[in-house]
């Protein structure tokens, strides 16, 4: 696997490319065009970039108003502020009001690392999963990012898209199809299956590679769409694996892991199961990479967790 660009860069490039041919595309930023890599967009298409200053509530409300007239609106701001400060506007002005804004949370999860908890968004999946009428996508790599931005152009309902800002591994063959709501099975494994989302997919893929070298059949599903959830792909994998581990750059509460857990219970599937994410505690300081390692979202720790569960499961 080669290293690609930051998903953020791919987002900005794709958006500019599409907007150059569609004057109906409008980007709204809250002093975030630099963080969003949208300076070239603003220079090329100044009429299609609305700046509202550091005001996330206003950002979402204005985006809703624009979208109500038929514009394809991308409201772009750091995920931490956008989905907390702007949550009531997302719930009421976008989702409840059927104004199909594309809410784009940049530098999501712990991308801002040592800037601290104020700048982390580990609540956004949980908050938005509980809001009716907004779908949630977190692309894992450049292909998925390009795919979701293109798909967003014709997506009829409100959409939340979140990603980070560091370069990502290219996880998929270039011709891999992308569709919102359809998970991508990167590899299958009847011993261990990682179900991961967003920037936590890469370490899961590397962990699976480690396990395969040890003769353990390990699979990975990129569950890029948290809502609507691809239950069929998940249940098929869950029914044919001994160990299932979910991996997400989010609180262990209310995100991918608990979504999977509820499906396992409902469908009476009981593989050995673990949710990997951020625990309910004050965050240790560190970069995104250091925080991933600290909380076990890393190839070595994921592989070790899988082997431990496999061993435990074998002894039952």
């Amino acid at each position: 696997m080669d290293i690609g660009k930051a998903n953020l860069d791919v987002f900005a490039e794709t958006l500019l490319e599409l907007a150059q041919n569609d004057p109906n595309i409008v980007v709204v930023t809250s002093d975030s065009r630099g963080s969003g890599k949208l300076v070239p967009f603003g220079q090329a298409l100044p009429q299609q970039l609305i700046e509202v200053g550091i005001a996330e509530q206003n950002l979402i409300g204005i985006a809703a108003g624009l979208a109500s007239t038929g514009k394809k609106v991308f409201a772009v701001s750091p995920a931490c502020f956008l989905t907390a400060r702007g949550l009531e506007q997302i719930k009421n002005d976008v989702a409840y009001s059927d104004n199909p804004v594309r809410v784009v949370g940049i530098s999501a999860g712990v991308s801002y690392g040592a800037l601290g908890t104020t700048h982390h968004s580990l609540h956004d999946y949980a908050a938005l999963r509980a809001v009716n009428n907004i779908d949630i996508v977190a692309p894992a790599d450049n292909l998925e990012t390009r795919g979701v931005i293109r798909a967003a152009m014709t997506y009829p309902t409100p959409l939340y898209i979140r990603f980070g800002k560091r370069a990502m591994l290219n996880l998929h063959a270039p011709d891999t199809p992308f569709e919102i709501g359809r998970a991508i099975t990167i590899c299958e494994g009847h011993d261990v299956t990682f179900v991961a989302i967003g920037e936590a997919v890469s370490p899961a893929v590397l962990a699976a590679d480690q396990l395969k070298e040890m003769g353990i059949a390990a699979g990975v599903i990129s569950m890029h769409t948290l809502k609507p959830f691809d239950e069929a792909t998940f249940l098929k994998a869950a029914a044919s694996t001994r160990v299932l581990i979910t991996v997400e750059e989010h609180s262990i509460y209310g995100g991918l892991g608990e979504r999977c857990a509820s499906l396992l219970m409902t469908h009476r599937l009981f593989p050995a199961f673990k949710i990997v994410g951020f625990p309910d505690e004050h965050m240790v300081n560190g970069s995104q990479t250091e925080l991933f390692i600290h909380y076990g979202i890393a190839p070595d720790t994921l592989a070790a967790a899988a082997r431990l569960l496999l061993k435990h499961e074998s002894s039952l």
Partner: protein
Amino acid sequence: MQTHDLKLKSIHYRRTVLEIIKGSSAGHTGGSLSCVDILNVLYNDVMNVSPDNFRDPDRDRYIQSKGHSVEALYAVLAERGFFPRADLDTLNQYRSHYIGHPTRSVNGIEQNTGALGHGLSIAVGTALAAKLDGRAYRVFTLLGDGELAEGSSWEASMTAAHYKLDNLTVIIDRNRLQITGGTEDVNALEPLRAKFEAFGYAVWECDGNDIDDLKQTFERLPFAVGKPSLIIANTVKGKGISFMEDTVKWHHRVPTDDEYTTALAELADADAELNGVARGHR
């Protein structure tokens, strides 16, 4: 439309407001009665919007940020033919589209509101879209005065001025009361006009319960080229019913049977007086 006819409509709307609040045993009586004259003039004399052009991209837009006064909006929209008056008999009932705040499920309503401090940003976005697309439609939004404590209203005001949205008109229903008490006692707003002017609005004050004053004020729009317009409409909460006027408890109180009878009698008297005065002039 003639002032006399508009005044008759206001009485009719007030009657409808009371009927539907009494019928459903819920509603925001005082705020609906304070803003109903504003809605009357907007929908009958100012805005280019009707049931026939409601899907037209060039129609004028009205966004009611003080969503709790939805009964006034329902009364006006029904009379303007957006839906049958009989629909309002289902207000707040199980499965009815007619709930205690505006929703787009009801024909004629532009945006879902109810949480305060949201309408102005949505209005700014809608007005911005007109500028981007070179369309001539205007956007009107009604805010309560108590609602102005929500910081998002001021965020939106900054953007309205920054983008020189002279196609946007913000109306403040300045009835000086909110659920807890007087606006100046709860979290003082004054000097309100100076604040709005400092935020970049062209400001006009009027009597928001006086049809002529409202008509003349709207005729002056836009108040300045390159600036959003803002009207401080000085109103009386509970206007039109003597014992409800300027009284905190009528924020969302439902009249008793006796109060209801008295209120309708007052409206009947006002109606008779208006017609009598009109006859006298002929």
